[in-house]
């Protein structure tokens, strides 16, 4: 006999509200339906009423974790409309902020995944490490969530003491390599809760068009930092971890390895930070009529902005945001098919979903 279990929109296993109707045969999930929209704030519509300065602050609030990525993508699109080119130092600072944000996001996710695995000590360890990344972000920007770093044609703040940041990154990397990575990759608890669970096959990952670590854990080797470099990524050496299994463990491994790659990128960017200006200077911004697009590899995958401007206007005609979770969430339906009911919270968490981003 099949029965339906509604999970959410408010549920202890969910960090933000959304609803999953699970159709079960006994303890086995046979189908699932997803419902979103509980965080809908009409941000795209609001953007049409904000000028080119206000809209940056607005779009920073699309997401509470990868706020910097949203302003970066938006500013890159607006730079294409205004013909602005950020100076090299600003591009490096953008790269550093983007990688710090990836670290912060991946470590936060690792903590939540550990909690859902029943691995509370690991949860505490991850959140302690996350605090260190937050401290670095605060030291650079003065803020812990919305950093206000990006502007059209550059960045708002400098990194005055790159060596101090480098020291913090090295300490973080050492702790990651000493505790988090070995435990996640070798512990029997992590293996038993994650291996073979929530499989997304390579074929399904391709047909659903999933992005980021979710795609890379199913053998889809896509990374915009390499395929379509932005900021200073063309000058960085790094590898893109790819796993083939497509299960929760593969998604965990990909993120764990990406943490180390982020540290590697940060060390390069901080040591090579070029001197110079932070922006293009005091110039009158003239927006071309038409549309510009920009894409960035956020911690959860590709973010794309389409920004359209009206003639002689201070406000955009349209700002459309395609967030990574919007692309990844439909795949949850395929991941939970055949799974045990008890595994579904961890399977959902394994794509590192952000419902605020998804609903906008």
């Amino acid at each position, binding site marked *: 006999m099949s029965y339906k279990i509604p999970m959410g929109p408010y549920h202890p296993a969910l960090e933000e509200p959304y609803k999953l109707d699970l159709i079960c045969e006994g303890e086995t999930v046979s189908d699932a*339906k997803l*419902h*979103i*929209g509980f965080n*809908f704030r*009409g941000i*795209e*519509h609001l953007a049409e009423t904000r000028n080119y300065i206000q809209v940056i602050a607005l779009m920073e609030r699309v997401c509470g974790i990868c706020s910097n990525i949203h302003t970066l993508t938006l500013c890159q*699109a607006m730079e*294409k*409309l205004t013909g602005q080119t950020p100076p090299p130092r600003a591009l490096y600072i953008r790269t550093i902020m983007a990688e710090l944000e990836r670290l912060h996001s991946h470590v936060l996710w690792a903590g939540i995944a550990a909690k859902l695995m029943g691995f509370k000590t690991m949860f505490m360890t991850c959140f302690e490490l996350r605090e260190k990344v937050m401290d670095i972000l605060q030291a650079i920007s003065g803020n812990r969530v919305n950093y206000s770093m990006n502007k059209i044609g550059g960045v708002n703040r400098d990194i005055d003491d790159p060596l101090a940041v480098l020291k913090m990154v090295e300490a973080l990397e050492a702790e990651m390599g000493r505790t988090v990575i070995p435990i996640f990759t070798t512990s029997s608890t992590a293996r038993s809760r994650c291996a073979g669970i929530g499989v997304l096959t390579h074929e399904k990952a*391709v*047909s*659903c*068009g999933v992005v980021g670590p979710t795609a890379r854990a199913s053998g889809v080797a*896509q990374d*915009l930092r*390499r*395929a*379509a470099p932005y900021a200073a990524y063309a000058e960085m050496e790094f590898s893109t971890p790819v796993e083939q299994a497509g299960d929760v463990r593969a998604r965990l491994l990909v993120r764990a390895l990406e943490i180390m790659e982020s540290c590697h990128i940060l060390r390069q960017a901080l040591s090579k930070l070029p001197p110079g200006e932070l922006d293009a200077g005091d110039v009158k911004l003239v927006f071309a009529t*038409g*549309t*510009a*697009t*920009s*894409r960035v590899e956020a911690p959860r995958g*590709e973010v*794309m902005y*389409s920004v*359209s401007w009206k003639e002689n206007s201070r406000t955009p*005609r*349209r700002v*459309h945001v*395609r967030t990574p979770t*919007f*692309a990844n*969430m*439909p795949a949850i339906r395929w991941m939970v098919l055949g799974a045990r009911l008890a595994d579904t919270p961890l399977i959902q968490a394994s794509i590192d979903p952000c419902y605020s981003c998804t*609903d906008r």
Partner: protein
Amino acid sequence: MISLEEISMQLGTADAWIESRGAYWLAATELNVRDVARVMSAVHARFITITAYQQPDEDGFRLEYHWDLDGRLLGFAFSVSGNSIDSIYDICEGVDWIEREVHEGFGVDFLGREYEPLLMREGDTLGVNLREVSK
């Protein structure tokens, strides 16, 4: 890596691609959205999103479809004179949610598919979130 000219050939158009502000656009007006989706699927391009624009003076919509092909962003724009356009959901699974979002936000109908509520709840009015109702 497949060239853009080969894609034009598969689409049966001689029109040139135009690189503009982050994307390569094929401005062929005679293209059909389902033919484009079939060719994009055949060359293993990854669907990204649809961006809908309401045309001034209640004159329909402009829908911009984007695919990624080996790091290149490909754009195809379609004008919708009424409120409907063919769905490509049966060709491209990844389009499901964005077709539902555009349907709910702008009231555009994607023909040949069924909808379940995505951002809205059952019985909510379509086209109130992003569509301009008066100027």
